[in-house]
């Protein structure tokens, strides 16, 4: 557990938080942030696709069903809870549902690194789960808002088809799915050509990225009070619940200890690339302080620092039962 917290990635994230709390002038140029994002998405997709090409359909179909099941149902109960218990209005509840149903590629990467460090094996095709789980939840979240708001004249709605098109053409799913396919097709020779860029330095790049993530999360910390105690509790308890469900169903679907834990991490993580952009356009009435703060300043740090070792312990309990 200490080993996980003392990983370069987690420490870089902490350093980022500290830097922004002491008002450091450290700032990543915007294009570095964008470049790192492009790199991570390509690297995850490519390696996942290559590993998927080594797997059999037998191994994959059950986990895939579980993954899709998870990302379609998580937004539903999240929405209900946000409305009933959290007393949020329709757009904010829907936006939170979209974020927590979707997944975080960086949390996922940290989970991979975590397992590799501890030499715990996991199914190589897990990135395809990530790719499948990104978009459905966002569409469901946005649809929930549609169904529950009568369209008014002053408030024109973007057709959900249009939203779907934009999500699939959006950079994160396009790169993930595209390079999943590329990795799947190129075989060993192809993979080995690009591995020195997309595999070897991966954890180093992740460290860089988490430093930047820490800088942003640190700034967001001051928004925590706006979110209130409920959001803090929600942003910690819900991920744990989702992780447990994910681990349990994953193990039922035949995933190994490592694979099931990673599925749990996917279920537990909240999106902050695709979902915020989509919600801003399709649900402008939803207040970014709520969903960004909880996804970026609560759930993300919690998962990176405490969630990973915790879910690992939970998985050991569930799976050896």
């Amino acid at each position, binding site marked *: 557990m200490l080993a996980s917290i003392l990983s370069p990635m987690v420490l870089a994230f902490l350093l980022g938080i500290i830097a922004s709390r002491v008002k450091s002038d450290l700032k990543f140029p*915007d294009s570095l*942030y964008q470049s790192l994002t492009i790199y991570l998405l390509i690297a995850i997709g490519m390696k996942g696709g290559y590993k998927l090409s080594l797997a059999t359909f037998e191994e994959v179909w059950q986990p895939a069903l579980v993954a899709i099941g998870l990302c379609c149902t998580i937004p539903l109960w999240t929405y209900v809870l946000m409305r009933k218990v959290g007393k949020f209005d329709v757009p904010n509840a829907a936006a939170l549902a979209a974020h927590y149903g979707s997944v975080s590629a960086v949390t996922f990467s940290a989970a991979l690194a975590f397992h590799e460090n501890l030499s715990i094996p996991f199914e190589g095709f897990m990135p395809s789960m990530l790719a499948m789980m990104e978009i459905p939840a966002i569409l469901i979240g946005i649809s929930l808002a549609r169904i529950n708001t009568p369209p008014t004249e002053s408030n024109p709605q973007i057709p959900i088809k249009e939203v779907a098109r934009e999500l699939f053409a959006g950079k994160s799913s396009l790169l993930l799915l595209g390079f999943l396919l590329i990795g799947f097709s190129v075989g060993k020779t192809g993979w080995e050509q690009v591995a020195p860029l997309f595999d070897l330095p991966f954890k180093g790049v992740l460290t860089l990225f988490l430093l930047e*993530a820490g800088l*942003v999360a640190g*700034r967001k910390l001051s928004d925590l009070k706006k979110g209130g105690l409920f959001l803090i509790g929600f942003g910690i308890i819900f991920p744990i619940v989702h992780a447990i469900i994910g681990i349990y169903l994953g193990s039922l679907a035949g995933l190994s200890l490592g694979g099931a834990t990673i599925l749990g991490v996917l279920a537990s993580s909240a999106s902050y690339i695709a979902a915020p952009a989509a919600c*801003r356009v399709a649900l*402008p009435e939803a207040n970014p302080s709520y969903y*960004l703060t909880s996804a970026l300043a609560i759930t993300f740090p919690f998962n990176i620092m405490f969630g990973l070792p915790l879910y690992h312990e939970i998985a050991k309990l569930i799976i050896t039962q």
Partner: protein
Amino acid sequence: MQNFHLLTIITEEVLATTIEKELVSLGAKGYTWSTVSGKGLEGVRDNQWEGENTKIETIVSEETCKKILSHLELKYFNRYAMIAFYHPVQVIRTNHFL
């Protein structure tokens, strides 16, 4: 002689493509955009995670300027981080703007 205005819109980057299309359909012949950072009623907007600003500038006739502004007011002003302002400018080669 025609009066030209430089209309500047500073708003959320996610809206840029849509707004640019709307500018053209409302009569603008061209536009220029760049990424900027800013602070306003909606807080600081300075990076991709939390949202960034685009500044769109378009030189249009007074009439088109008014049309664009009422469109923006109706569709965006209450829901997004956005400001818009304009002032008269002298131009060369009016065919670029009419």
